[in-house]
C-alpha cells in the first residue's frame, strides 16, 4: 500500500489512456468486414479491420488502423492549458517532467504515449509477450489465503497467476467485478494471465498516467488455490463541469511542436508558458476542420454533460463511445476519438481523426499478387469510383463498398480489394488502395454435347445420335478501355452444321464520348442469326396441332446505348436483317397451313412474309428507352419500370417496308405497407402492369403482336389468344409473403382491340383464336421457379403451370 501511495504521489497526473480502449471497436470492425465481403472472390478488403487483439498488435498487418506500432506515433497528446493550474505534458516519454492537476486526455493508439519513452512507451506489447511466454507455468503465491497484500510486498521472483480482477471505487465505496466495470478496458491484466511483480507495477504506473484516475493502486488477494485476485482501487479523475461540447477533426493537422519547458522557470515565465500553450491550442482548434458529427449527437452529448455535473473520466469515456459509435454506424470506419482537450473549462473539446483520404492508389496485381502494370486504363476504373473516395474526403466504408460494386460490374477483374491504409507520410491521413487482378484478356471455349432423339417406337435410333457443340471466344478489354469482341458458333449437329448453325459476333465499344466524360454511351454492333418458332402460327383452343413455322433471322445490328442510371437507359440504332420463314422440314414456306377436317392440309393460310416469297429483307431503326427506378426492399422489388420500344421502317428492303411499330409498357410495384428496411420481412406489393403495342404500315405476320403466354396472359399458351396489329394487356398481381414464402394472386387480360383482321390473312381467325382473353390465378414462388394455378377465363378451366423467372 505504502508503495502504491508513494508511486501515486510521485507519478504525474498527466496522462495517457491505455490503448486497449480500442478493443471493442476493433471487434466491431471485424464484423463489418466479414459482412461486406461478397461471396465471389471480392473482398472489400476484409482487411478493413485492424489487428484483432492487442497481443497480436505488433505482428498483424494493420491495414485499417490509423495507429501504428511505431514509436514515432501519431497523435501527440495535446494540451489544453487553461487556468494556470493545468499542466503541460508533452509526449509520454517525458512524462516525469510534469506535475500538477492534469487536464488532458489522450486516446491515442498503441504506444501513443511513447513520444520518446523507453519500455513504458509500449506497455501492452511487452505484457503480451510476457504472458505468452509464461502461459504454462506459474508460481503459487505461497501465502495464507484471503490475505490482502500490497503490491510492494509481492515477491519479485514469482510469477503470479491472476484469477480475478475487481474494481473498487473509493468515492462510491463499491466493488465491482472486473469485467462489468467500464474501466476494465483500461487494464491490461486479464484473469487467467500470469504476471510478475514488475509487470503489475508497470500496470499501476500506466493506469496512473492515463488520466482517468486521480489515484489508483493495486492490491493483491491471495487465493486458496495459489492464484491471486487483483483489486484496483481508484479515485476517478474529475474536472470542472462543462456545458458545451465541440468536436473537431484534427486529422491532417500538423503535429504541434511541444514547447520546451524549463524546470527553472519563474512564475512569470510559467504564466507566459501556459499562455503560449493556451493560444497554441486555440490556434489548433481554429485551424481544425469541423466534424461530420450531426447536431443531434451534439445535443445528446450536451445533455450528457448537463446531467453529470462534473466532467468525470467515465463521462469522457461515454462521450468517446457515443461519438465513435456514430462514426461507426455511419460507416466512417477510420474515425477515432483521439483526445479531449479544454478540460476544466466550460467547453469540452473532442478531437477526432476522421480518416481523411490523402491519396487514392490503384494497383494491378498478377495472379501471385505481385504488383504489375495493368492493361486496363486507369480512367476506366476511376470513373466507377464514387467521388467520396477521392482525396480530400473522409473515408467511408459504404463508399468503399460502392466502389467495389461498381468496379465489379465492369467484369474486368477477378479480384478486387479496396483497402484503406494509414498514410505514412501524412499523419492521420488515409490512402485508399484499390488492388485489382485482371481477368485473362482472351478466352476461348469449346463445348460439345450429344443429342439423341427418340425414334418411332420410343427407342433412339443410331441415326438420331448427333454430336453438337458450341465454340466461343472472347477478347476482353481491348486497348485497356473495356472494348470487347465476343463470338460464338453453335450447332446441334456438327455432321450437318448447315441445318441449324447459329452464330453471333459482337463488338462492344464503351465510352464513345471519352472515358473521362461523365456521359456514358456504349456502341455495340453485332452480326447474328437466330431461329424461333413463331407464336403467330399457333392454333386456338380445340384446334389440332398447327404446322409450325420457323422464323430465321440473320443480319446485323449497330446501336448506341446511353446509360442514365444503372437501370435506366436509352438505346438507338439500325437493324438490317433477312427473315426467312420455314416449315418443319426447313423448306421455305410462304403461307401458314392448317389441317382440314378431311385430314389434309390447307396451304392457303396467312402469308408468312411481307413479300409473299417467304424471304424478306429489311432495314429499320430500332430504339428503346427504359426508365427503371426499381429497387429491392428486403428482397422484394418496389418502384416503377416504363419502357417504350420503337421500330421505324425506312422503306428499305423487300416490298419497301415502311412501318412504325411501337410498344409501351408500364409496370408499377407498389409497396403496400411501410416496413423497416434491412429487416427480414418483405412488404406486400401490388404490381400493376399495362402494355400497349401497335403498328402502322407494313406488318409482316412474324412481327405481329401475339397474345397469350407466360409473359402476356398467363394461363394460355404462347399465341393461343391471337396475333394482332394492336395489343393491349392489363395485369394486376398482389404479392404477399407468407412465412417467408412469396405467394401471389393475379388477374390478367389481353385483347387485340379488334385489330386481328388488320394482319394480312387474319392469322387469329385462320387458326380459330378468340382474339382476347382473361385469366386469373394464384401461385407461390419456390426459389426461381413459380408454381401457379391459372384459370383460363375463355374456357373456364384451370391448370397448374411451372415457370422460370418473373412475369414482370
Amino acid at each position: 500500500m505504502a508503495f502504491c501511495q508513494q508511486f501515486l504521489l510521485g507519478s504525474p497526473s498527466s496522462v495517457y489512456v491505455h490503448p486497449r480502449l480500442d478493443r471493442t471497436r476493433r471487434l466491431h470492425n471485424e464484423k463489418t468486414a466479414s459482412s461486406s465481403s461478397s461471396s465471389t472472390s471480392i473482398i472489400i478488403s476484409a482487411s478493413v479491420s485492424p489487428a484483432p487483439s492487442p497481443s497480436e498488435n505488433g505482428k498483424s498487418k494493420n491495414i485499417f488502423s490509423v495507429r501504428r506500432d511505431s514509436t514515432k506515433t501519431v497523435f501527440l497528446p495535446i494540451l489544453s492549458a487553461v487556468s494556470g493550474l493545468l499542466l503541460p505534458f508533452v509526449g509520454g516519454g517525458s512524462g516525469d517532467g510534469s506535475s500538477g492537476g492534469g487536464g488532458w486526455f489522450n486516446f491515442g493508439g498503441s504506444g501513443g504515449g511513447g513520444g520518446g519513452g523507453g519500455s513504458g512507451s509500449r506497455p501492452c506489447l511487452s505484457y503480451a509477450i510476457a504472458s505468452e511466454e509464461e502461459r504454462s507455468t506459474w508460481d503459487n503465491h505461497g501465502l495464507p489465503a484471503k490475505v490482502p497484500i500490497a503490491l510492494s510486498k509481492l515477491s519479485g521472483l514469482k510469477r503470479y497467476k491472476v484469477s480475478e480482477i475487481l474494481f473498487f471505487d473509493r468515492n462510491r465505496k463499491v466493488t465491482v467485478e472486473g469485467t462489468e466495470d467500464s474501466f476494465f478496458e483500461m487494464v491490461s491484466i486479464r484473469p487467467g494471465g500470469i504476471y510478475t511483480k514488475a509487470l503489475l507495477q508497470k500496470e499501476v504506473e500506466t493506469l496512473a498516467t492515463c488520466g482517468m484516475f486521480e489515484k489508483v493502486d493495486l492490491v493483491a488477494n491471495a487465493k486458496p488455490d495459489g492464484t491471486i485476485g487483483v483489486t484496483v482501487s481508484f479515485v476517478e479523475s474529475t474536472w470542472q463541469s462543462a456545458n458545451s461540447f465541440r468536436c473537431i477533426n484534427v486529422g491532417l493537422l500538423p503535429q504541434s511542436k511541444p514547447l520546451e519547458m524549463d524546470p527553472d522557470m519563474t512564475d512569470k515565465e510559467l504564466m507566459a508558458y501556459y499562455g503560449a500553450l493556451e493560444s497554441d491550442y486555440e490556434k489548433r482548434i481554429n485551424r481544425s476542420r469541423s466534424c461530420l458529427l450531426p447536431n443531434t449527437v451534439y445535443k445528446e452529448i450536451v445533455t450528457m454533460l448537463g446531467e453529470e455535473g462534473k466532467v468525470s473520466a467515465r463521462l469522457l469515456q461515454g462521450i468517446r463511445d457515443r461519438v465513435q459509435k456514430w462514426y461507426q454506424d455511419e460507416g466512417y470506419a477510420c474515425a477515432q476519438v483521439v483526445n479531449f482537450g479544454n478540460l476544466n473549462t466550460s467547453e469540452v473539446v473532442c478531437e477526432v481523426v476522421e480518416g481523411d483520404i490523402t491519396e487514392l492508389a490503384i494497383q494491378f496485381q498478377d495472379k501471385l499478387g505481385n504488383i504489375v502494370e495493368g492493361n486496363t486504363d486507369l480512367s476506366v476504373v476511376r470513373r466507377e469510383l464514387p467521388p467520396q473516395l477521392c482525396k480530400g474526403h473522409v473515408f467511408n466504408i459504404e463508399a468503399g463498398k460502392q466502389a467495389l460494386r461498381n468496379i465489379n460490374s465492369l467484369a474486368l477483374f477477378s479480384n478486387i480489394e479496396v483497402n484503406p491504409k494509414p498514410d505514412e507520410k501524412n499523419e492521420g491521413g488515409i490512402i485508399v488502395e484499390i488492388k485489382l487482378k485482371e481477368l485473362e484478356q482472351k478466352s476461348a471455349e469449346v463445348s460439345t454435347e450429344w443429342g439423341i432423339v427418340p425414334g418411332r417406337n420410343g427407342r433412339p435410333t443410331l441415326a438420331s445420335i448427333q454430336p453438337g457443340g458450341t465454340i466461343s471466344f472472347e477478347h476482353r478489354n481491348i486497348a485497356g478501355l473495356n472494348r470487347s469482341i465476343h463470338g460464338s458458333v453453335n450447332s446441334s449437329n456438327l455432321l450437318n452444321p448447315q441445318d441449324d448453325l447459329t452464330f453471333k459476333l459482337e463488338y462492344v465499344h464503351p465510352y464513345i464520348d471519352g472515358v473521362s466524360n461523365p456521359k456514358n454511351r456504349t456502341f455495340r454492333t453485332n452480326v447474328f442469326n437466330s431461329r424461333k418458332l413463331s407464336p403467330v402460327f399457333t392454333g386456338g383452343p380445340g384446334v389440332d396441332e398447327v404446322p409450325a413455322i420457323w422464323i430465321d433471322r440473320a443480319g446485323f445490328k449497330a446501336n448506341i446505348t446511353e446509360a442514365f442510371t444503372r437501370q435506366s437507359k436509352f438505346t438507338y440504332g439500325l437493324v438490317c436483317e433477312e427473315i426467312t420463314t420455314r416449315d418443319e422440314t426447313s423448306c421455305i414456306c410462304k403461307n401458314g397451313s392448317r389441317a382440314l377436317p378431311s385430314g389434309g392440309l390447307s396451304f392457303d393460310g396467312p402469308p408468312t412474309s411481307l413479300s409473299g416469297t417467304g424471304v424478306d429483307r429489311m432495314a429499320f431503326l430500332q430504339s428503346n428507352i427504359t426508365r427503371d427506378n426499381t429497387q429491392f426492399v428486403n428482397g422484394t422489388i418496389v418502384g416503377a419500370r416504363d419502357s417504350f420500344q420503337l421500330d421505324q421502317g425506312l422503306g428499305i428492303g423487300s416490298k419497301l417496308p415502311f412501318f412504325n411499330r411501337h410498344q409501351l409498357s408500364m409496370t408499377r410495384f407498389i409497396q403496400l405497407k411501410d416496413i423497416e428496411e434491412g429487416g427480414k420481412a418483405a412488404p406486400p406489393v401490388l404490381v400493376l402492369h399495362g402494355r400497349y403495342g401497335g403498328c402502322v404500315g407494313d406488318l409482316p405476320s412474324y412481327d405481329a403482336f401475339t397474345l397469350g403466354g407466360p409473359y402476356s396472359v398467363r394461363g394460355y399458351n404462347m399465341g393461343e389468344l391471337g396475333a394482332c396489329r394492336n395489343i393491349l394487356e392489363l395485369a394486376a398481381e398482389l404479392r404477399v409473403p407468407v412465412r417467408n414464402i412469396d405467394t401471389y394472386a393475379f388477374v390478367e387480360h389481353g385483347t387485340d382491340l379488334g385489330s386481328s383482321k388488320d394482319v394480312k390473312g387474319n392469322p387469329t381467325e385462320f387458326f380459330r383464336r378468340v382474339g382476347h382473353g382473361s385469366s386469373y390465378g394464384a401461385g407461390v414462388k419456390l426459389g426461381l421457379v413459380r408454381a401457379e394455378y391459372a384459370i383460363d377465363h375463355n374456357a373456364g378451366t384451370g391448370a397448374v403451370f411451372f415457370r422460370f423467372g418473373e412475369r414482370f
Partner: protein
Amino acid sequence: MSLSMQKARDWTGIRGFPNATQNKLHELLEKLKYDKVNTLTILVMGKGGVGKSSTVNSLLGERVTYVSAFQSEGLRPMIFPRVLAGFTLNVIDTPGLVEGGYVNEQSLDTIKRFLLDKTIDVLLYVDRFDSYRVDNLDRQIIKAITDTFGKKIWKRSVIGLTHAQLSPPDGLSYDDFLARRSETLMKVIRSGATIKNREIQDYDIPIALIENSGRCTTNDDLEKVLPNGICWIPNMMKTITEVISNGSKAIYVDQKLIDGPDPNLRGKIFIPYILAFQYFFVVKYIKGSIMGDIKKEKKPLWQLRDGF
C-alpha cells in the same frame, strides 16, 4: 368455273307458276323496268341445309339445282341467268358457309372469287324459320359476310326464312312467332354486322318467308300460300324489288373488295407524324421521368455529407 357459268336462257320456269303469281311477277318486273332496272342479281347465301338450292328452284320455277334431302350441297357457286322480255334475272346459288362448326372461309373465298366483276343487287340470306335459337356461329357467318362484302351489303339484303309453313309451338300465334324469330335473328345480324343502334333505321332488313315443300298449301288461285295467308313467291319478289329501290347502291365485286382494304396501307402517310409524336411526347416524357428519378434518388447520408 365454266361449268357453273351458264348462258342466259329464257325464263321458261315462270310459266309453271299459277297465273295469279305470274301476273304479280310481271307487274313487279314492269315496275323495275320502269325504274330503268334491266338486270337483277340475287345472291343466295346461308348455312348448309337450310334450303338455299330449293329456294332457288322455287324462285325460278325450275329444277335448276339437284336437291336431295341427305346429299351435301355443291362445292362451288352457280349462277342461273334467266331472261324475260328484256329483263335479266340472275340467281346465284352458293355452297353452305359452315363446316365443322366454323365458318368455312374456303367456300367464302370461292364465292368471292366467283363473284369477281359481278354486281350483286340483293343478298338473300337464307335461314330456317323453324329453328328457335341463334348462336355464335350465326354471328360468325354474318361477320364473315360483312367482312367480305362490307357492311353495306346489309342495306341490300333480304332475310329468307324457309320452312315457313309451320304451326308455332306453345300456342303462340303465327305472327307472334314470326315477330320473335325475326327479332332474335335481327339481333344476331346487327351484332355480326356491327350495326349500331342509331343505324338500325338505315339497315332495315326485310324478312321474306319461304316454303319450298311441294306440300305447301295453295289458295284458290293455286298459289302457294302460308298460314298467315301470304302468297310467298310474289311476296318475296316484291320485298326484293323494294330493297332495290330503297336508294342504296348495288355491290360491285372487284379485286379490291375481294382483297379487302389493305391494312398495311392504312395510316401509312401519318407515320412521320406518329414518329414525331412518339419522340416529342413519349420518349421525351420517359427521359424526363428518368431525370426526375435521378434527382429524387435517395442518396445515402454519407454521399450527402461530403468530406469537404
